[in-house]
């Protein structure tokens, strides 16, 4: 019995080691004065300095975050509307059709999304650059938000709305005072998911970004194709720290909101 538990734990430990090795490998060598990802020669912060002196890179980082925040905010609004639309549609077939269309972009490979958007923007005549990247990010984030919000809506007891109507609330009151507060955790989750997808996206952006505009993923790709440069390592360390902060923040927010909204939901 005891022995079995040990093997189980060993398996999990190996899993976690493998999952985190590449990340810590990057971080470790970001301090290597040797300039390569092997043979650690000496500690240096030179690569970090290089990152902070690289104005082009900093602008790209800024671009990436602006795109991510804008895209996830707009797609959250659209996604909530979409979820409400699907929720209110009464006909089963219509509902299923909407859901299927919603999921198309989620299951589609990135290259397909990228290639088809490239055609779309070229036909409509939108210049490839900031606008096209932003529109694409909004487009592929909307279904994610819908999928995060819809279960919350379906979880909501229909009598809740009836109760609000009974107490004299109009459509707008029902939406702002009952529905939106109830689905807030779903909205937050959707926003964060959209943010991650946007920050993480490479393939779609790679297709629809023109020559003048670049996001972090695309930049890393083009630098990595030229070989190893430890400023990428330094950058990845900074990004990893940022991600951890984001996760911890998200964890606390979700803990708090589950305490606020999940009172009845706990078994």
């Amino acid at each position, binding site marked *: 019995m005891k022995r079995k538990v040990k093997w*189980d734990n060993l*398996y*999990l430990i190996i*899993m*976690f080691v493998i*999952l*985190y*090795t*590449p*990340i810590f*490998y*990057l971080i470790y060598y970001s301090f290597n004065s040797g300039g390569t*990802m*092997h043979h650690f020669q000496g500690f240096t912060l030179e690569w970090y300095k290089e990152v902070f002196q690289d104005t082009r890179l900093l602008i790209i980082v800024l671009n990436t975050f602006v795109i991510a925040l804008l895209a996830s905010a707009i797609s959250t609004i*659209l996604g909530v*509307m979409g979820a*409400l*639309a*699907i929720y209110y*549609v009464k006909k089963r077939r219509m509902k299923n059709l*909407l859901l299927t*269309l*919603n999921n*198309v972009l989620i*299951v*589609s*490979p*990135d*290259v*397909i999304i990228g*290639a*088809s*958007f*490239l*055609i*779309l923007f070229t*036909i409509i005549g939108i210049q490839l650059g900031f606008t096209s990247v932003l529109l694409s990010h909004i*487009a592929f984030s*909307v279904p994610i938000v819908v999928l995060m919000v819809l279960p919350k809506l379906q979880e909501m007891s229909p009598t809740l709305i009836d109760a609000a109507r009974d107490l004299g609330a109009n459509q707008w009151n029902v939406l702002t005072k009952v529905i939106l507060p109830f689905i807030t955790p779903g909205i937050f989750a959707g926003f964060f998911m959209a943010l*991650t997808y946007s920050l*993480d996206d*490479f*393939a779609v952006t*790679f*297709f629809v970004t023109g020559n003048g505009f670049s996001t972090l*993923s695309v930049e890393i*790709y083009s630098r*990595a*194709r030229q*070989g*190893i440069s430890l400023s*990428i390592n330094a950058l*990845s360390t900074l*990004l*990893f720290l940022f*991600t*951890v902060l*984001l*996760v911890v923040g998200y*964890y606390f927010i979700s803990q708090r909101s589950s305490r606020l909204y999940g009172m009845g939901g706990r078994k």
Partner: protein
Amino acid sequence: MKHNTRNVYLIPYVLWIVLFVVAPILLILYYSFFDIEGQWTIANYKKFFTPIYLKMTFSSFWYAFLITVFSLLIAYPTAYLLTKTKHKQLWLLLIILPTWVNLLLKVYAFLGIFGTYGLANAVLEALGVGTKQILFTDFSFVFVSVYIFIPFMVLPIFNALEELNPSLVDAARDLGASAWTTFRRVVFPLTIDGVKAGCQAVFIPALSLFMITRLIAGNRVITLGTAIEEHFLVTQDWGMGATIAVFLIIAMAIVVIITGNRK
């Protein structure tokens, strides 16, 4: 009156669907009938059925299959063991955390690890196997892809296992089933939906990976994704790219139908 306000939500959403879901697919289909000069043709389809493209399609499917199978073999026990741990939500978060690190960075890390003097070769050296060429091989491609996809496989399986009524496992044991029989006849069949969802989340993207092939496999592995990227962004032959994309969409639809008959 009531109806109108509700339809307000439909308008922007349906607009989004038409513009970014329906239109792009139709455009891909439309473009697949044009050659590089802009002439209407079905030559692209003829070309697709030549041995070069068929072989590429086949190998793309083969790699995607391998990646899916290995991901499943590694992820299922992981998910299962995770559900047995005490702070399972925290451990799950730690499994998901690497997916929040930019994909390119993780791929880039393997450039170092698999390099001639990297960690992997150092380990091989220490084991007495000696230095091997790891980078730019199919092995490195499959390994890195599996690494990238494991969390996406773990998550749905973990959720399916969590939904499994534990008294069903008790019942199987009670009826005389050994641990293995219980797994084979009760646990696995009842978590098959999670497995399907995981396979879907891995197989389709695995068909279309191009950054990993470019960076890690050094053009040794050409997937459908690589070919599409090549045609759209390098040779500018959008017609042929769109044709390959059409087949990728068909493949995707088939995979979704096979894995998607969930209740």
